[in-house]
């Protein structure tokens, strides 16, 4: 009992010290005019988001409910998994414009193999027994990894700019998706009527009493944890940051740049495959539009979350926060009843602003 009290006192003391340190830092920022200006500019995007949320809450207080939060999280989850893959490439000073279309293509593969066996117009009538879920998942991952290998080859071996090579891959993936959906017996039609096991696996939830936690959020958390370990505790992750920060220095230090780039792209491919499998189950209908602009959402999520285009900078929690912020913005704009076309303009401005803040940090450091 006495030991417990001492422990409590120690924790309380520690928290007090920490709180005092944070308060002191905030006061220092508030006192110094230049620091205050810097802080305002660097966090302006978050302040706008906060204002947006306050506006939405004034309009409709149900926005802050647990059920709404779990909906936002579920929607952010597949984009979050995609963003975790794209973030690695941005750390390398690259990017991936093909992520969305790769997701679309792999989602079509997953959905077509997991259509209900009782559905007459299914893509593969020869499948009479439901396939184990792991088979389409692995095929989806393999297909995504193949596309990502193409990107890695262009970037690491041919030294092409990642924008160009991933733009090419994007078109290849989109063409493949259209051909695949067109190859159905009844012509181009959405791949729907999915197996109920698949829908339950993706859209199910854990009942926590006060809220329902979607499985999708759990899958995102698992992927994020694995990626955190890869980024922070493995040689691949350490080399990734070294190459992103200064490829010349990394190469001189004996890091195999080409092999590491391939490694990061293959890990991203695995994430795209998982995201595709989950997204097809979430939407429950795959068309040629699947994956459109998902890459831009993933890239902007990364930039908002602090992954810098200068390379060698970024964290997994940052990526997750960025993706969630973007999703909250999407929801806020919807809640405020803003015209869909106007939403595109606002989202575009948000991306430009996030990149401008990143550029500002780079110029100030230089």
């Amino acid at each position, binding site marked *: 009992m006495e030991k417990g009290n001492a422990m409590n006192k120690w924790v309380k003391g520690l928290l007090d010290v920490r709180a005092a340190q944070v308060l002191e830092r905030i006061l220092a920022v508030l006192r110094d005019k230049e620091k205050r200006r810097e802080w305002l*500019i660097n966090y*302006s*995007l978050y302040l*706008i988001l906060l*204002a*947006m949320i306050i*506006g939405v809450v004034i*309009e*409709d207080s149900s926005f802050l409910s647990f059920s709404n939060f779990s909906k936002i999280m579920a929607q952010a989850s597949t984009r979050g998994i995609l963003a975790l893959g794209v973030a690695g490439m941005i750390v390398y*000073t*690259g990017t991936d414009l093909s992520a969305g279309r790769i997701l679309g293509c792999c989602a079509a593969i997953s959905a077509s193999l997991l259509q209900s066996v009782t559905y007459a117009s299914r893509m593969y009538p020869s499948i009479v027994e439901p396939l184990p879920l792991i088979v389409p998942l692995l095929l989806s991952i393999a297909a995504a990894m193949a596309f990502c290998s193409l990107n890695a080859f262009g970037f690491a071996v041919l*030294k*092409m*700019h*990642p924008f160009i090579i991933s733009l090419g891959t994007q078109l290849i993936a989109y063409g493949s998706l259209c051909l695949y959906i067109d190859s159905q017996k009844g012509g181009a039609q959405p791949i729907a009527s999915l197996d109920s096991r698949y829908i339950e696996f993706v859209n199910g939830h854990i009942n926590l009493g006060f809220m329902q936690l979607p499985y999708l959020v759990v899958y995102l958390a698992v992927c994020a944890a694995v990626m955190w370990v890869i980024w922070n505790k493995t040689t691949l992750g350490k080399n990734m940051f070294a190459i992103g920060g*200064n*490829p*010349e*220095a990394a*190469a*001189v230090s004996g890091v195999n*740049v080409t092999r590491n780039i391939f490694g990061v792209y293959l890990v991203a491919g695995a994430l795209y495959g998982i995201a595709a499998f989950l997204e097809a189950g979430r939407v429950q209908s795959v068309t040629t539009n699947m994956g459109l602009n998902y890459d831009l959402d993933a890239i902007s999520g990364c930039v908002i979350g602090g992954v810098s*285009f*200068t*390379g060698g900078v970024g964290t997994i929690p940052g990526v997750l926060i960025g993706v969630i912020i973007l999703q909250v913005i999407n929801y806020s*704009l919807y*809640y*405020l*009843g*803003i*015209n869909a076309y*106007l*939403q595109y*303009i*606002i989202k575009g*401005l*948000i991306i*430009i*602003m996030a990149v*401008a*803040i*990143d*550029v*500002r940090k*780079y*110029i*100030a450091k230089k």
Partner: protein
Amino acid sequence: MDGNEKLAERLEEVERRERAVEKREKAATAKGLRHNLYEHITCSVGTVDIIIAACAALIVGLTVFGALSGGGR
């Protein structure tokens, strides 16, 4: 050789090494090994600040305009 001369020599050596690393980095950029998207940005911090402020004003303005003209939910 006195202390000052030694120090000057050492400084020169450090500067020479720094120049060599810079040269190698430039060569790496030219070879395509480095794709820093901000490498060629020439505008000042003030200009970027104006861009950030303009974006912020537009986002706020368009959101308010959209919410008012959309009539809310």
